[in-house]
Every structure is written in C-alpha cells, then in structure tokens.
C-alpha cells in the first residue's frame, strides 16, 4: 500500500484544520440537534484525518474504520434533512440507525460481498440525499447557489468511497497507487465544499 507522502500529510492536515474551524465557528447558527449531527460528520473527518496522519492509509483496511466512516455521510445527510425537510427527519433517522447497524453486523459477521453491498446501499442513499437536497432547494429558489457546494462535496465523497470500495472488492477502477494519491485531494476539497455549502444555509 502506498505510503503517505509529505504532500499527502499537508493536505490531510489542511483538511483537519478546515473541519476543525467548521466545528468551532461554523455550526452555532443551527439548532441543537443539527449541530449534533454536523459535529459528528466533521468530527469523524477530523479524527479520520488525524488517524491517517498517524497510521497511514493501512488504517482504511480496518473494519472498525469503515463502520465509523459511514457516520460522515449519514450524520451530514441527517443534519441536512432536519434543516431542510424536518418532516422526513424521523424516518430518515430510523433508516440511518438501521443502516449503521447493518453495516456493523455485516462487516464483522458476513461474507465480503454482502458487507460491501450493504455498505454501498447505505452510503449510496446517504450520498444521494446530500447530493439531491441542495439541488432541489436551489431549483425551488429557497437557497443561494453556494449551497450547491454541498452537492459537490457529496459527489466527491461518492467518488472517493466508490474507488475505495472497488479496491476492496479486488476490481479496482484505477490503480491503487493512483487512488491513494488523489484521496487526500478529494478529502480536502470535499471538506472545503461542505464548509462553504453549510455557510449558505440561513
């Protein structure tokens, strides 16, 4: 597995800083439950960045890391749903809990194919939610264009997750080396995009 280069480390550190500043100054305008959800998503990004800096990319092979990483799209989408479409919050919360539970169970006790499919389905739904919501709100004239940065972030996290999943299934779309070379760029750009997008929510 490719070792994290100096540039990778700088990018990951920058991602940690951006996510940290979002946790410190970017969430106070939201209501408590939304702050809780967004703190989880940016918090996991911070911890993931620090763990990648300390342990390198090998940590991504750890099953526990895969489960915890699922919290990023799930909690971010939960925050968005609660902010933009509160009526759907409860069913979506139930889906998120069930999804996380399913990822955890299949990750530790099912064949690789089932665990990968479960992960892809839960990640996929959460990712589409993050991608679609800002576009819908913008199309209805209820949000300014900066909100679309959240969709960009969702697109990027989708690409990152997809490439990593294909490596895990043994059918990589891009060489492993290339994926890990672009991963820190994806993570940083995605975090910046989410931060800009969240600022657009009134």
């Amino acid at each position: 597995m490719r070792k994290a280069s100096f540039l990778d480390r700088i990018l990951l550190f920058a991602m940690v800083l951006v996510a940290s500043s979002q946790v410190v100054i970017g969430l106070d305008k939201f209501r408590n439950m939304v702050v809780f959800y967004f703190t989880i998503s940016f918090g996991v990004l911070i911890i993931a960045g620090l763990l990648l800096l300390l342990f390198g990319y090998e940590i991504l092979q750890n099953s526990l890391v895969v489960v915890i990483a699922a919290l990023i799209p799930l909690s971010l989408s939960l925050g968005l749903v609660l902010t933009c479409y509160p009526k759907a919050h409860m069913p979506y919360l139930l889906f998120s809990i069930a999804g996380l539970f399913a990822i955890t169970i299949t990750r530790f006790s099912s064949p690789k194919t089932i665990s990968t499919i479960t992960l892809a389905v839960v990640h996929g739904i959460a990712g589409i939610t993050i991608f679609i919501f800002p576009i819908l709100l913008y199309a209805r004239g209820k949000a300014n264009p900066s909100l679309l940065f959240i969709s960009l972030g969702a697109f990027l996290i989708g690409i990152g997750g997809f490439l990593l999943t294909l490596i895990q299934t043994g059918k990589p779309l891009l060489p492993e080396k290339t994926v890990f070379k672009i991963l820190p760029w994806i993570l940083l750009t995605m975090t910046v995009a989410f931060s800009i997008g969240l600022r657009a929510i009134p």
Partner: protein
Amino acid sequence: MRLNRNLSEILKERIKFYWQLIKALQTGLLLLTGITGFITSRCPVMSAGIFLGLIGSLFLSISGSTVLNMIIDRDIDTRMGRTANRPIPSGQISAKEALILGSILSIAGVSWAFVLSSIFGLFVSAGLFFDVVIYSLWLKRRTPWSIVWGGIAGAMPIMAGRALGLGRVDLVGILLGLSILLWIPTHTLTFSMKYYEDYARAGIPTFPSAYGFKKTRLVIAISSIGAAIAVGIGITALGLSWGYLRLLGVLSVGLLGLVIISIFYPSERVNLGLFKYASLFMLSSMLILISGVLL
C-alpha cells in the same frame, strides 16, 4: 581563515549536541503550555518585555532541568538502546560540560523568572525542583509512582504562565495544571510499554513492570478521560464559545477511542499511535485555549 572555519564547525557541533540535550520537542510543548497559561489569564498588563521574559525564562529553566536530568540518568541511558546515542552516554559531551550548561540554563531561567514576578519564580523553581530532585534524583529508580511527581513538574509551566498573568493562583490555573498532570501518564505509560525491555534492562521500575500491561492500560484510560474533562472544565470556566468545547469533545472521543482499542485490541502499533495522538491532543488543547481567548 582555517582556524575560523574549525571554530565555527566546533560551535555548530556543540549547538547540535546541546539541542539534543534539551529535548527540543518536549521543551517546546511544555513552553507552549506556559504561554497558554499566560494567554488564558487575559493579562491586562501585556508588554513585549513580559511576554519575552515568560518565553525566555521558561525555555531556559525547562531546558536546564532537562539537561540536569540527562546527567542524572546517564548510566540508565547507556543501558537503554533508545537512549544510548544521546550526547552524554555516547561520550560526545562530558557530564561536566553538561553540568555547567544545565546549571547556567537553570540559574538563568529561575533568576529571570523571579525578576518578572515572585509567584512566577516560585512556580518555575518548583517545577525545576520537582523534576530534577524529586522525580529524577530521588524517586525514578525507586518507584513507578515517580511519574506523578514528573507530572506535577510538567504542570508547573502552565500554572506559572497563568500566575504571571494574574498575579495569583486560581481554580482555572489548577484545572489546567491538573489536565497536564493527568495527560502525562498517557504519554509516559504508553512510552514505558513500548520500551518495556529497555527499562527493565536499566532496572527502572515502571507501571507495566510493577502492575502489568492490563492495569497500565486502565490507568492510561482513566488519566486520558481525566485530562479531557479537566481541559473541558477549564474551557467552560474561561467562558470560551461552545465551538471550542465541541472541538475538544471531538478530539477527546478520538483519544478515548484509541484508549479503548488499546485495551481490547492491544498491539505495538496502537500503543505508538496512542502515544502520538496523546501528544497531538495536548498540543491541540493548548491551541484551542489560545485561539479561544485571542479570537
């Protein structure tokens, strides 16, 4: 011309060895805690002279005590693979030269501290006394509990900085000191597990050798939680915004997660990761406190 070059090479070499003797990273982290303590006091009489004095006196006294510890521990260092190449055990610097350097640094640091303020001077000299006399000279070879005194010594810079700003000791200062005191076991115990055989060879009693790895990991867990709680209460007492507390919460969850993993899935790698994360946690906590007060 040639004489000048030789002289500059010798000087460069000396500085390189002296830099190793003062353990620049550790000294830097402790210095940062002192600066944090001072900044959190929101000192109304802030001047470049006082700030420079704070940095200068703390740097000199912390470096001085580190050099004196190196002299006291030189026989231990010789027996440990990790430390055998340090300047004194490897013979690059004589114990006498190190003693002169350590004494000059310590005396200069403590004197400067007393010139700034008597209460600041008291804390700085207490730190030096606890570190060199109580921890290194008296207890390190006798009991694994010596780390408590090492921890108290480590807590002195942050309390000194805050006392310099306030002119007195207050509860927040004690809390911040407590956070360092509780963080130090996470730092030193993970280290003593990693170099278990080294310490055993040198005959130094450590927690893992006295109580086993399992209990040591439990102590690390408890002290980590305690350190996070102490910083958290400190942030709240200082009236910093919720955002800083949230960030500290996130970092604490990371620390706690690693501690739990190290208890249930112990490995050399997790242990080293925890050691590094604990240092990063304390560094981040100090930066959170500084940013929270200044921004």
